[in-house]
C-alpha cells in the first residue's frame, strides 16, 4: 500500500510539474545571454538573436554580452551562482556545468525538452547527432540535462599533403597521403626533420609540435583505443595501458627529435603555414586560421584527417561548450530562455551559425543546406564526415582542475619523466580532485 501511494505521489508530482510548465506564459520576458564570441562569430550570433527578437510570437527579448573566455566566464559565475545576478543563459563546458550543479546553480532542462507544448518532437530529437545531444545529460545527477549543444568542434590532424608526397616520391617514407597509424605518423614526422619541405619559407624543419593540453592527451589516448574516464566506476583512468602507450609513443618522438613543444600560443599554426611543420593536432574550429596561415605562408596543399589510430575505426575527440540555464530566475524566464535555445539550435539558425563560426552544426539535417559551404571548405567537410566516430572528454565536476594537472604531467613526460609512474601519480591526484567534488554533492 505504501509503495502504491509513493508511486502515486511521484506520478502526481511529475504530472503537476509538467502541468506547471505547460501553463507558463513566457510573454515579454528578457533573456540575458553570456558568451565568449567575438568578430565573425559575434556577427553570426547577433543575426540569430535579432531574428528571434523580431519574429518570436511571445515578445521575448534576448540580450547578450561578451564576458571573456570560457575560464573568465567560469570565474564570474562561481561567486554568483543561485542568485539573480546570473545571466539567464550562459555558455560553458559540461564539466563547468557539473561544477555549477554541485552548487545547485543549474536548471534541469529535461522538462522543457520533453514538454508537449514547448519541447522537441521525436523527429527533432532524432535530428540531433546522438553524441552531441546526450553529452549534456549527467548520470551523476540522476540524468538531469544541464546544457544543450549549439555547436561542436573536433580534434583533427592537420597535415601538409604536398610535403608527404615529396617525401614519398623521394623514397623517404613508405606511404602516401595522410598517415593512418601511429607508426606511419612517426615515420613521416621523423623523415620530415631530414627532408625539409621544398616550399618552406625558412626555419627548423620538424614533424610534430605537441601542445601540452588535456584535450591532446585525451585525443591521443582515444586513438590508442583507451579512454581517460571509466563511466561505470566514475573514476579517471589516466594510467590505463592505452594512455601509457600513447604518451610513450609521443615521448619517443620527442626523444628522436621528431617532435617538440608548442612554445608560443598558436605557434604550431604559424610553423605549419610556413611549411616547417608537417603535422599538428588541433581544433577544427581553427580551419580558417590554418587556411590564412598557409595561403599567406608557403601556400601548399594541406588537409585534415583522423588522428592516427590503433583502433579499427578512427576515434575523434569531439568537444564544445553547451549553453546552460542558471538558477535564480523565474520559471517564465527559464521557459523564455529555453525557447531561444530551441531557435538557436533549429535547422535555419544552425546553418547561419555554422557559416559564421566554423563550428559543426548539431543537427544532421543542416548538412543538406551546406552543400555550397562544403564545396568551398573541403577540409571542413572532411572533418564533418568524421562526426560519426566521435567521443568526448568526461563531463566530470572539477575537470577544469584535472586539466591543469594533466598539462603539467604531459610536459614532464615529454621532458623525460617515466611515463607509467607519472601517469599513476597524476591519476591518483585526479581522482582525489573528483572525490572532493563528488563529496560536495552529497
Amino acid at each position, binding site marked *: 500500500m505504501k509503495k502504491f501511494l509513493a508511486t502515486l505521489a511521484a506520478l502526481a508530482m511529475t504530472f503537476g510539474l509538467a502541468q506547471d510548465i505547460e501553463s507558463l506564459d513566457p510573454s515579454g520576458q528578457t533573456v540575458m545571454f553570456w558568451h565568449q564570441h567575438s568578430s565573425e562569430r559575434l556577427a553570426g550570433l547577433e543575426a540569430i538573436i535579432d531574428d528571434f527578437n523580431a519574429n518570436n510570437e511571445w515578445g521575448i527579448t534576448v540580450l547578450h554580452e561578451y564576458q571573456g573566455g570560457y575560464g573568465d566566464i567560469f570565474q564570474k559565475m562561481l561567486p554568483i551562482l543561485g542568485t539573480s545576478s546570473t545571466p539567464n543563459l550562459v555558455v560553458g563546458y559540461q564539466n563547468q556545468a557539473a561544477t555549477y550543479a554541485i552548487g545547485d546553480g543549474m536548471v534541469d532542462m529535461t522538462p522543457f525538452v520533453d514538454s508537449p507544448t514547448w519541447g522537441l518532437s521525436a523527429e527533432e530529437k532524432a535530428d540531433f547527432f546522438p553524441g552531441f545531444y546526450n553529452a549534456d545529460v549527467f548520470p551523476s545527477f540522476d540524468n538531469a540535462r544541464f546544457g544543450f549543444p549549439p555547436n561542436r568542434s573536433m580534434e583533427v590532424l592537420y597535415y601538409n599533403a604536398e610535403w608527404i608526397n615529396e617525401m614519398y616520391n623521394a623514397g623517404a617514407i613508405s606511404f602516401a597521403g595522410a598517415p593512418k597509424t601511429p607508426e606511419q605518423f612517426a615515420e613521416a614526422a621523423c623523415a620530415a626533420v631530414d627532408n625539409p619541405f621544398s616550399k618552406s619559407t625558412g626555419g627548423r624543419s620538424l614533424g610534430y609540435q605537441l601542445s601540452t593540453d588535456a584535450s591532446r592527451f585525451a585525443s591521443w589516448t582515444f586513438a590508442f583505443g583507451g579512454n581517460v574516464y571509466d563511466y561505470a566506476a566514475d573514476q579517471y583512468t589516466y594510467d590505463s595501458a592505452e594512455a601509457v602507450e600513447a604518451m610513450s609513443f609521443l615521448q619517443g618522438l620527442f626523444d628522436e627529435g621528431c617532435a617538440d613543444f608548442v612554445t608560443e600560443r598558436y605557434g604550431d599554426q604559424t610553423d605549419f603555414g610556413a611549411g616547417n611543420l608537417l603535422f599538428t593536432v588541433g*581544433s577544427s574550429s581553427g580551419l580558417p586560421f590554418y587556411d*590564412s596561415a598557409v595561403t*599567406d*605562408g608557403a601556400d601548399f596543399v594541406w588537409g585534415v584527417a583522423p588522428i592516427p589510430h590503433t583502433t579499427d575505426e578512427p576515434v575523434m575527440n569531439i568537444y564544445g561548450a553547451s549553453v546552460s540555464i542558471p538558477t535564480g530566475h523565474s520559471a517564465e524566464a527559464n521557459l523564455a530562455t529555453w525557447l531561444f535555445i530551441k531557435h538557436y539550435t533549429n535547422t535555419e539558425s544552425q546553418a547561419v551559425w555554422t557559416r559564421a563560426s566554423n563550428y559543426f552544426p548539431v543537427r544532421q539535417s543542416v548538412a543538406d543546406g551546406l552543400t555550397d559551404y562544403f564545396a568551398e571548405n573541403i577540409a571542413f567537410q572532411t572533418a564533418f564526415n568524421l562526426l560519426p566516430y566521435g567521443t568526448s572528454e568526461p563531463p566530470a565536476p572539477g575537470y577544469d582542475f584535472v586539466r591543469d594537472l594533466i598539462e603539467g604531467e604531459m610536459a614532464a613526460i615529454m621532458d623525460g619523466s617515466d611515463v607509467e609512474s607519472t601517469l599513476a601519480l597524476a591519476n591518483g591526484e585526479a581522482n582525489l580532485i573528483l572525490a572532493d567534488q563528488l563529496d560536495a554533492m552529497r
Partner: protein
Amino acid sequence: MRNLGNRRGRTGSGPQVGEARSHTRVEAPLSFRASHIPLYLALITGAIVSATPFLFMMSTSLMTLGETINRRLLPDVPQWANYVEAWSNASFDLYFRNSVILSVVTIAGVLITCTLAGYAFARISFPGRNVIFTILLSTLMIPGTVTFIPQFLLVRGDIIPWGNWIDTLPALTVPFLSTAFIIFLFRQFFAEIPSELWDAARLDGAGHWRFLAQVVLPMSRPVLTTGALLTFVNTWNEFLWPLLITYTAKWRPLGVGLYTFISEAGPETHLLMAGSVITIVPVLIVYFFTQKQFTEGIATSGLKG
C-alpha cells in the same frame, strides 16, 4: 592675504628648492672618447630592445592575418583598414569613452587623497606616523591579483553593506582612488620642502591647510604631474579587474576591448595590434606633453634634504 611663498627670499637660511635649481651650473657637453664606446653600445642596444616591441606592433597592425601568422617583418601592402575594423568590431568608441572617464575620475581621486596623505606623513607629527607609513609601504609588496577577492567582496557589498557596485563606475574607480606608491612619492617630495617655509608660514598665521594650498601645491607641480601620469597609465591599461567585475559593456575600458581579438581558435593579431596602437596613442600624447615634469618629479622626489 600675503603670498607666503614670497617669504622664501628673506629667510636667508639656505638655498630654497626653487632657487637651488636655477643656480645649477651648466656643464660643457662631453667630448667623445673611445672609452665611451661600451656605454654607447649598451645604450643603443637598450634603445633597440625597448623600441622593437613598439615597432613590431606598428608593423603588425598593418598586416593581413596571414602575414601575422607567418611572422613577416613588414607588410607587403599596408592594411590601414585594420584600424577601422578594430575600431568598429570591438565597440572601441564606447570603450574609449569609458577609459577616459575612468582615468579622469581616478586621477582626481588619487591626487586628492595622496596629496593629503603624503603631506600628513611628511609634515605632520602624529603618534604612530612612522609605523603607519611602514605598514603602508609594506603593502607595495602585495601583488595586485592577491587583493582581487577581498576587493570583489568589498564592491559587492559583502563586507560593508553599502550596496552592490558590480558593473558600475564606483567598482572600477573607488578601489584605486589611493595608492601606496603615489603616497610615498608625494611624501618624499613634500619632505624636501624646507622647514623654513613652514616657519615663515606659521609666523604669518597659516595652518597646515593654508600652507599646503598656498605654498606646497604651487611648488609641487612636477610631482603632481608625475602622480597623475602614472595613475593615467595604470588606469588606461587596466584589464583584469574590469573584465572580472563588469557584466555589460557599459563601463568596460579599452583593455577589455582588445581581449575580444583573441578567440579560442586563433588570434586576430593584426586587429589586436591595430587596437593596441589606438589604445597606446593617448598615453604617448600625454607623456609627450608632460615628460619634462615627469622627469623632474621623479628626480626631485628622490633628493635628500
